[in-house]
Every structure is written in structure tokens, then in C-alpha cells.
């Protein structure tokens, strides 16, 4: 049986109180909302902490609100189940509702929060294991060790971003509101990520994610999410594909975005997708060809590593398949793309 280490639990009631606690304890504190990922990681002794700062009593962190001029403002501690079921999110940001609806299993989504998923730690088959197991191989770069077992001789941790919400929010050009004792700041999600699996974000232990701001999308916005995993539930993605198609009133693509996750330490935006799809009218042969081109671009640019479980060759072969299917689903206002 894996036991939790000893720690103290603080139950602040306001964001200011949370930030004061984080400022006081620094890296020796972690916030806990749903705890669906944090608690297993604590049992695996991945974090050395003294204090868990519980967000359950901080009411101002919860809820989905209609933002000004058609956007969304989602409190960081809103559960994934609430986001997935929200009519407002389904209407204004279908890709986000679909991605949240495919995170883990129903029980996890009832406990787990959107903010928790955005701030999810990277994952790797060599790190998300018990202390005993990790000790047997001499640990690894991400925690307690000096070697990488994915890229032998590698000096940089390549643990994979595995959060379904990250590519969805990146495709929507969301902004994240962080607060610390030094004040509040807004960070475009694209600028959150670093290509370092040890900690793949630019924020520090003193920063609290307060809300996720999704800007208003164009009238002809379409989005869909595709997720590859071994089972129809529970599992982290072997590949996640978020798609945005912005169309004009003739249903011609004006702008497009394809963002993938579960490849490397940060979500990957496929380059030149917008150029490939721009001008193509949905449902035409030109659109079908443009979708093929987008799938080719993704396959060319993305190279899965043996960081997460699952055959990397198979994961790479599935990239064009899922990009193609998810783009088609978005065009038909369908999705999510999933094998069950």
C-alpha cells in the first residue's frame, strides 16, 4: 500500500489568503483542488511538501460566466464535469467542452478541475511510479536522479504534457489569469509553456491560476477534440488533437489551428495549418485536400518519444488519422473523436 507523506492542510477562504500562504511556503506548498492527480503523485513521493493549500472553500474560484462580447470566463476550480456539461461552453467553445468531457473517467471529472488540468504536471513512464520502483532504476532527471531513460544521454527532461484542456485552450487563444502576493497578471496560454518536462510552465510555486478567459470566437467558429487512448475511459491521452476552424458566411475557412498534446513537454501547435486550409469551403473537394495537407504537416512535424506508455511508432501513425478525423468532425459541428 502506498501512503501519503505527512503534511499540514490549510483551508483559506479567499484568493488573497491562498496567495499569502503560497508566498510564505514557496515550493514547500502545493494547492489542491480535485486532487485526482496530486494525491497519486504525493503517494509516489514526487513532491516534497509541508503544506497542502485546499481550494475547496474559495468560492470565487468556481463557476462558468459569459464573458463580455461573447467570450467565457471560467473559474480555475470549476470541475471538468461542469465545464463539459455547460451549455455556454458547448455553444461558445465546443472544443473545450469536448476535451474536458474526455479527461480521465467520470469520477475524476466530478472531482478534478479545469485549473488542475491546465496546471497538470508532465507525465512519463519513468516518473509516474512508486518511490521503490523509481529507486530500483536509479531515479531519473525529473526527480531525485541525473539520467534520462527516454533519451539516453539526454540532458533535458522530455516528460509529456498530458492535459486534454491545454491544446483546446491553446487553439482558442485563451488567456490565463494568475495571482500572487505581488499582484495579478494575465498570461496568454501560448506563453505559459516551456519545453522542459521537469516544470513545463513559466509560472512559479507562488502563482495561483485564478481563471481561464476564452476570448469571443468569430460567428462561424467550429471546434472539435480528438483523443487517442488505450481504453474508452480513465487513461491519459496517447495523443490529443484540438482543432479550430473559423469560417465566413460562405463557410470558407478564414483561419484554422491544430494543436496536439502528449508528444513532448509542451503542447505542439502544427505550423502552416492555417495556410493549408484558408479559403477552402467546407464540404468541397478543396477542403478534403486541405485536410489531407494539414494531416501531412502534423505527421511531418511531430515525433512521439517513448516517454509515455504506448508504442511511439503507432502513436506517430495515428497523428494524421486523428488530425484528419478531428478536422472533419469540426467542419460538421461534430466530435469528439474517440474510439468509443
Amino acid at each position: 500500500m502506498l501512503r501519503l507523506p505527512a503534511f499540514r492542510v490549510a483551508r483559506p477562504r479567499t484568493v488573497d489568503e491562498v496567495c499569502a500562504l503560497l508566498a510564505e511556503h514557496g515550493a514547500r506548498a502545493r494547492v489542491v483542488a480535485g486532487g485526482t492527480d496530486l494525491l497519486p503523485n504525493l503517494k509516489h513521493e514526487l513532491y516534497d511538501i509541508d503544506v497542502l493549500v485546499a481550494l475547496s472553500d474559495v468560492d470565487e474560484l468556481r463557476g462558468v460566466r459569459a464573458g463580455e462580447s461573447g467570450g467565457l470566463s471560467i473559474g480555475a476550480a470549476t470541475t471538468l464535469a461542469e465545464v463539459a456539461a455547460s451549455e455556454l461552453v458547448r455553444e461558445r467553445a465546443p472544443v473545450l467542452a469536448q476535451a474536458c468531457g474526455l479527461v480521465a473517467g467520470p469520477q475524476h471529472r466530478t472531482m478534478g478541475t479545469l485549473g488542475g488540468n491546465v496546471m497538470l504536471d508532465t507525465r512519463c513512464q519513468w516518473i509516474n511510479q512508486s518511490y521503490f520502483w523509481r529507486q530500483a532504476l536509479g531515479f531519473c532527471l525529473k526527480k531525485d536522479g541525473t539520467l534520462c531513460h527516454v533519451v539516453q544521454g539526454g540532458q533535458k527532461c522530455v516528460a509529456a504534457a498530458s492535459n486534454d484542456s491545454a491544446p483546446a485552450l491553446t487553439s482558442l487563444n485563451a488567456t490565463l489569469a494568475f495571482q500572487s502576493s505581488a499582484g495579478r497578471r494575465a498570461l496568454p496560454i501560448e506563453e505559459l509553456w516551456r519545453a522542459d518536462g521537469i516544470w513545463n510552465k513559466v509560472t512559479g510555486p507562488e502563482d495561483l491560476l485564478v481563471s481561464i478567459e476564452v476570448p469571443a470566437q468569430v460567428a462561424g467558429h467550429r471546434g472539435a477534440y480528438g483523443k487517442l487512448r488505450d481504453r474508452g475511459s480513465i487513461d491519459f491521452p496517447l495523443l490529443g488533437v484540438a482543432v479550430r476552424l473559423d469560417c465566413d458566411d460562405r463557410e470558407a475557412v478564414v483561419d484554422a489551428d491544430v494543436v496536439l498534446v502528449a508528444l513532448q513537454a509542451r503542447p505542439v501547435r502544427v505550423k502552416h495549418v492555417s495556410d493549408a486550409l484558408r479559403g477552402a469551403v467546407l464540404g468541397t473537394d478543396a477542403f478534403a485536400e486541405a485536410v489531407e495537407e494539414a494531416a501531412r504537416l502534423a505527421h511531418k512535424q511531430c515525433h512521439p518519444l517513448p516517454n509515455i506508455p504506448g508504442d511511439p511508432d503507432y502513436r506517430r501513425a495515428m497523428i494524421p488519422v486523428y488530425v484528419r478525423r478531428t478536422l472533419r468532425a469540426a467542419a460538421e459541428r461534430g466530435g469528439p473523436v474517440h474510439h468509443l
Partner: protein
Amino acid sequence: VHKVWCAHDCGRALNPTLVAGQIEGSVYMGLAEALLEDHDVNRFGLHAGPSLLDYRIPTSVDTPEIEALIVESIDPEGPYGAKEAGEGPLHSVLPALSNALFDAVGVRLRHLPFTPGKVLAALAAKREAERTDVSSKSAPAGSRS
């Protein structure tokens, strides 16, 4: 896998409901072995799927409809004419799935579990073998002189 039919000769079915339950449970276990559960040991000699997250058992959504068919044949040597309904129905699932795969895409996998990645690799190997076979046959006659 959309549906599994499993017929099992259990001798006399002393409690047909329990026998059907045994068959369903065995089919579930067999499917899990055939498709998901992997006892792989990594290069450090450690189990590659040591937890219930990495060792993938089928959830309720991964388990298809199962039709349990009881075949009664009275065994004069068995208790009240019964045989067994424990492990027997499990074994039939693995060859059935192997055959279904062969029937669908023409490759024969020899190692469990039959994952999509292994099927894809076997298909690529088959295509490669056919290509080299064709190119050696189509080499011009007398080219070896």
C-alpha cells in the same frame, strides 16, 4: 470488439444462471488478456505496468455485449453429470480473436496482447514481405548470369 458469443460444454448445468455468469466473467478475462493486459518487463527488469493505471484492465465501456450459450452434455463421471465452468470459456476467446484478426486483415499475431500498434507493425511487415517477393519475381530472366 462489438460482441462475443461463447458456447461452453459444462456437463450438467447445476445452476444455469451461475454458469452463464462464469462464462461472461471468463470472456471478460480472455478479452482483457487478448487486447489490453500486458506483462512487459523493461530493461531494468521492472514491470512496465506496475499500477492499475498502467496495467490496463478493461472498464465497463471497454467490455462488449457477451452472449453466454450453455451446452449441456451429461458427464457420467462428473458430480451430478457436471464438468466445469471456470477457466474453460476463457481459453476460447484468445484463438477466436486471433482468427478474427486474421480474417479481417490477414496477419497472424503470436504474442499477447493484440494491440493496435502490433497489428500495424505486422501489416507493415507483411506489405514489405510482399513487395520484396514481387520484386524478386519480376527481376528480368537471366539477370543472375
